Every structure is written in C-alpha cells, then in structure tokens.
C-alpha cells in the first residue's frame, strides 16, 4: 500500500460488537477470520441475532469457522452478485437497530456498502475490516466502465482500452477507485506497468 494516501481513500478498522439486537455480516474469503476474531470479544448470545452472508471464493475455506458460531441465519454464496438479491431483501425488511459488519476484500466491502447506502444506512455506522487481497475495483472516469480486480499501476480499462492511472480517490456511491488516462497529454508516453495492488 502507498505510504502516504489521501482522505477519500477508505480507512478500514477492526470489527467490534455494536449495541443492537440484529447483526448482519457480509464477508468473503479471509474476511471470515475477522468475524471469528470479533466473536472472541462478543457477548454470549450475540450470534443468536446474527445473519452471516459468506462468499468463500476459490479456496472454499473458513465456512466451517463461521458455522461454528451458530448464527441465526447462515448463507454461502458463489459470488457477490449471487448474494445481492438476498442482501437487498434483508435490508428492505430490516428495522432500525440492525448493525452491519463487512469484512474481506475491498471490492466486497465496497459493493456491500453500496447496497447498504441505498437502503438508507449511513456509512459511518457500518463496521468494516479489510482482509485479503488489495485488488481494486476501478471506474474509468472517461467511459464510466468498472474494471474488477485491478492489480497493476497503470491499468488498462477493460471497456474503452485507455491506459489509466489508478488513483487513491474513492467513491462509496460507485464502490470504486478512480482511473484517469495516464498519458492523455501525449499518448506515446507509456510508463512501465507494476503489480502494486496485491
């Protein structure tokens, strides 16, 4: 990660149990371990009012760790997209007092937060913890297309093909970092590509 970043770059914390009766967790891959760490600090009946949506990813690890917490509801999804209808339905029927916890990759945290914002939850009330890959979701400011899992600097837009500088400037509404053409002033200038978001 860049040593010095900017204020719009999201800052992730460490999950901690919040007051409230209902707790909704959304996590992918190593994010499960953040939930397990929270469980160690949580009151005894905490997971009795919890709903966990987990997307294990390729390795299919950690599902058993979460099931062992005995949440009231547990769901294993193949991808964030397949979990989204369930998440939207849960949020639409929820009451004030529901607390949201997001853990795992930046892409997962960003997209789940996007759904929560649309449901009327303020981003400051959402607990987040980053675990796993630093690959970025990037929006091309020129064509507006989103490129998933960007690991290089610069990166090529998967939609319009422009070579983009991946900025730290981040939009919660779009759940994406901003990509801006890196050689707009002189297209013949091609900087070296480095793998930086791992």
């Amino acid at each position: 990660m860049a040593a010095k970043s900017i204020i719009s770059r999201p800052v992730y914390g460490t999950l901690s149990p919040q007051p409230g009766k209902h707790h909704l967790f959304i996590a992918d891959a190593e994010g499960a371990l953040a939930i397990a760490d929270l469980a160690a600090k949580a009151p005894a009946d905490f997971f009795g009012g919890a709903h966990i949506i987990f997307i294990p990813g390729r390795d299919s690890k950690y599902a058993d760790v979460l099931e062992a917490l005995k949440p009231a509801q547990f769901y294993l999804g193949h991808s964030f997209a397949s979990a989204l209808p369930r998440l939207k339905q849960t949020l639409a029927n929820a009451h004030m007092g529901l607390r949201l916890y997001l853990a795992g990759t930046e892409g997962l945290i960003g997209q789940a937060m996007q759904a929560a914002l649309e449901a009327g939850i303020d981003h400051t009330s959402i607990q987040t913890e980053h675990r796993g890959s630093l690959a970025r979701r990037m929006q091309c400011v020129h064509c507006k297309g989103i490129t998933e899992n960007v690991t290089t600097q610069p990166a090529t837009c998967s939609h319009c093909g422009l070579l983009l500088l991946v900025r730290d400037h981040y939009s919660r509404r779009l759940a994406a970092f901003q990509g801006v053409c890196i050689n707009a002033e002189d297209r013949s200038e091609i900087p070296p590509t480095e793998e930086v978001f791992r």
Partner: protein
Amino acid sequence: MSTGTTKLDVIVSDVVPVNELVTRFHFRRRDGELLPTFSGGAHVVVEMRDGERTRLNPYSLMGSPLDTREYTISVRRDDAGRGGSLFMHRQVRPGTEMVVSYPVNLFSLDLRARKHLMLAGGIGITPFMAQTAQLAAEGGNFELHYTCRTASLGTYADLLKERYDRRVRLYHDDRDERVDLDRLLSSQPLGTHLYVCGPSGMIGWVRERAAALGWPPETVHFEHFAAPQPGAPFDVTLALSDKTISVDEQQSLLEAIEAAGVDPPYLCRGGVCGQCETNVISHDGKFIHNDHWLSEEDHRSGCKIMPCVSRFEGRSLVLER
C-alpha cells in the same frame, strides 16, 4: 471572517393566549414585505428591550415554512427564569415594534430519511409544528409522539391531531400514559431518523435508549437549547477590550459583554452552536457550565466558557474578549 445574523424589523401583529402557561406571538415585517423563507426546525433570536436591559432569547419558528407573511413563536411563561418570558407575556402587545434575527436552523430535518420519527415533550413541540407542516406539504413520512402534563397543557395537541390524525400520538402524564420507547424504537424501518425536543431528562433518556438499541448517532437529532439561568452576580475583566464589567443576577454573561459594547459572534444563545466560545485567560473561582458545546475536558480545564449560558462564582475571571 465574522459570522452572525442579519436583523429584521418586525411589528407584533397578534398575541394569542394558548393555555395557562403558553402565549403565541405573531410578527410581520414593518415594511410590509415578506419575511425570509425558513426551514422546519429553525429559530429566531428575539431582542427584548426592557427598559435599560436587553435580553436576547431564541425561539423556534412554529408556523408553516410555506407562509412567510408572518413568523409565529410560542413562549412558555417561566416564573423562575430571568424574566424574558415574563417580559413577553406581560409587556408585548399587538403593535409592539421588535427586532428579530434572520432564521437559523440548528435542528434541521435529514431529508434523506425514509421516515421521520419525532418525540416532543411539553413546549418542545414548537419546532415540530413547522417540521410537520413542511413534511406534510411534500408528502413526507412522519410520526409524532407528544408527551404533555395534562390535556389542558397539551399545547397545540388538538390542532396536530386534527391536521395529521393517526400520525400524532398523545401521552398525558396525569393519566400515567407513557410512550413505550423500546418498542417504538425497535419497530422503525431502516432509514428512519429520530428527532427529540423537550426537557433535558427526556432528551437524555431517548438518546440513551436509542444508542442501546443500535441506532447510530447520525440518525438521532435533538434540540437542546439551555435557557440562560439566573445566578449570583459576578465581575469579569475583558482583557482585549480592557474593560471590567459586572454581570447581574438576571443577566447572562454574553448580555453583559454586549452591554459593554463588545460584540462576540452568536447564533443560538442557548449553548449549542459554539459561536460565542471564549477563552479564559485566568480565573480564581468556580465555573457553572450550562452549555452543550464544550467537551467535558474543556469544562474541567477551566480554559473556555460559553458566555451565552454559563456563569462564574469566585474572586476573579479574565476573558480573552
């Protein structure tokens, strides 16, 4: 970079007794023009010229923000207060010329809310009069829970019931009716915002229960004007203006500073907006902090005071004013 509000020259167009404690005052502009538009929850600071003394008290605007021909405020008589409400009740008549500030809103609706849940206690109903009128005109989703001592002291309860029917629930202390707060707070849809205005005990109770039940602080709004309290007289040195002044029993420190010709910025005069925050250069005595602006730490440090509502007891106080 000075802040503060513009003044409006108004004339009292009507004075209407509402019940044994509350009287309503209507103001129009002296030049016959429309008053500035305002938003539900806004207040004005009313200047009361009572002989030698000038008091400035904030009151919530309670009319509809859609009607700017007049401003209306409701004043509850406080027999033990510093005399502002008594002045309004006893000396202000239709035709009295007065000065009020431009409206300022420190208790604004969060218009993102899917639903607005309002809790009022006693005279704390006034900002909700304007907010419900504003929301009703836009088809906004709101629900008002209003607690009063007795039916006869339920200021505007009948009017609200008539306007909004089931969206208004009344609770009377003398009939032991009490809002089932935990149940109410647990049954609100996601995206609801909570607004509370009333006695400080009620505000504290509602905030505490909301936090315990998982309501994020951004969704809980409260109006907490502390009226300046009377107290023992004390002397103050204003270091920058090189003046020593006396604050009498019925005067606030801010009013005494203003009477000496020094004008700190202000908006609320109720200890919440932070504008008149003043540094203490030295003191020998005890502060009586009544504000909701400074932190506990600030209060303990003895380095700051909010002169609009706080007082001092002791031998000497020197302020950076």
